[in-house]
């Protein structure tokens, strides 16, 4: 227990320079159209890592709902949301940030989950256990995850037929 504790403290100290600039979910500022102008971390997004966030079930799992031709090596794309092909030509990074942080500000009542948001939720659970959440839940994705996905989405400038 003690050892673990020391590690946790060390991790916080190491992460401190980044954390200092990270915008917390509650502090994110949306404009009237649901856009978020300010980067959540101030650190440029990494598009390769964005692919990981989009395809990993435990992270964004975006392809569960969205088809992306560029990601066809990853199986099972869903049809619940629109195809993200050509998404960079439709939206700006600020708009994409707003959609990912909380899509309901851009599309009222959207089915798309809010990825950088901390509730309040109705009957929040502890991940996929079906049990009650223990205290306030961390957002589904981290601030840098969001920036990484935006960087990747901005590469999707092609429509396929």
């Amino acid at each position, binding site marked *: 227990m003690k050892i673990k504790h020391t590690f946790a403290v060390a991790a916080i100290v190491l992460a401190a320079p980044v954390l200092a600039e990270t915008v917390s979910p509650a502090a994110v500022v949306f404009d009237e159209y649901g856009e978020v102008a300010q980067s959540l971390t101030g650190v440029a997004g990494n598009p390769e890592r964005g692919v990981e966030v989009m395809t990993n079930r435990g992270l964004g799992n975006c392809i569960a709902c969205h088809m992306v031709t560029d990601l066809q090596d990853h199986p*099972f794309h869903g049809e619940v949301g629109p195809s993200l092909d050509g998404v960079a030509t439709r939206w700006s990074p600020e708009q994409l940030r707003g959609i990912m942080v909380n899509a309901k500000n851009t599309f009222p009542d959207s*089915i798309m989950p809010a990825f950088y948001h901390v509730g309040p*939720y109705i009957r929040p659970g502890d991940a*996929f256990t079906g049990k009650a959440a223990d205290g306030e839940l961390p957002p589904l994705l981290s601030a840098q995850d969001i920036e990484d996905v935006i960087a990747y989405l901005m590469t999707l400038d092609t429509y396929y037929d």
Partner: protein
Amino acid sequence: MTKRTLFAGLLATGGVLVAGLAQAQDIINDELVINGDLNIVTQAPAADHLDYMSVVRSGWTFRSTETQAMQMDDFDNPGMLGVESAMSDFTTAMGADGESCASCHDGPESLSNVRATYPQWDEEHGEVQTVEMQVNECITERMGAEPWGYNSTEMINMSGLISWAGRGEIVDIAIDGPAQETWQMGKDLYYTRTGQLELSCANCHEDNYDNYIRADHLSMGMLTGFPTYRLKDARLVSVHSRFRGCIRDTRAETYAVGSPEFVALELYVMSRGNGLSVEGPAVRN
């Protein structure tokens, strides 16, 4: 899968079909005839109380042709093993009075109207009862035996036998009168967006049926096939277990099997299937 259906499936999904995407969808087959002679209504006009649907469809119409085929003949339906096991429980004496189900009910056939009309209001107990609650009422109050677990294998099998006995009957759930309050509670639960993903039953089964979510082809979430034999679990699955699974997938805290919330939700969801046939034990993936 024959060449012809594969080709039709490709056409049906049109442009979105890219290698690695949701697998080719089979053409929708709505002709379910079991054992060559039992016609099942798998598509019907939606009940008047459904605001956003004009047609309702059985979960069977959303499954692959291979899964569909397993339900077309009882010899291929693995859920029938549970039904057979319940058949022997039906005539087995239980409890102090040495009575079996068969002491009061001639045979499972005499219960053929049950699945199509449950959950229903029980006057004596002043509450809405599911099939499982009714079975336990008989076991405890009429046979003087210990109740079965709500989700025990015996109970799921007996519920399977009762569905099987009622196969082909048209679902006709009463939603007015004393059941109305419970029904409304179930309806509210159906449309409540729960968990960290903030998804309601309606988000998946009303707004997105026929769409793929990951590898899953979303159905209308009907209860007419329950208990269903799930190939993934290799066993019969109860209604309330299915509810728990779906709610868990919204990253929410679920309700308990047999809880008042799930009884209400079952009443409501079952009533969405009014007009379809009972078809349990169904086979699902």
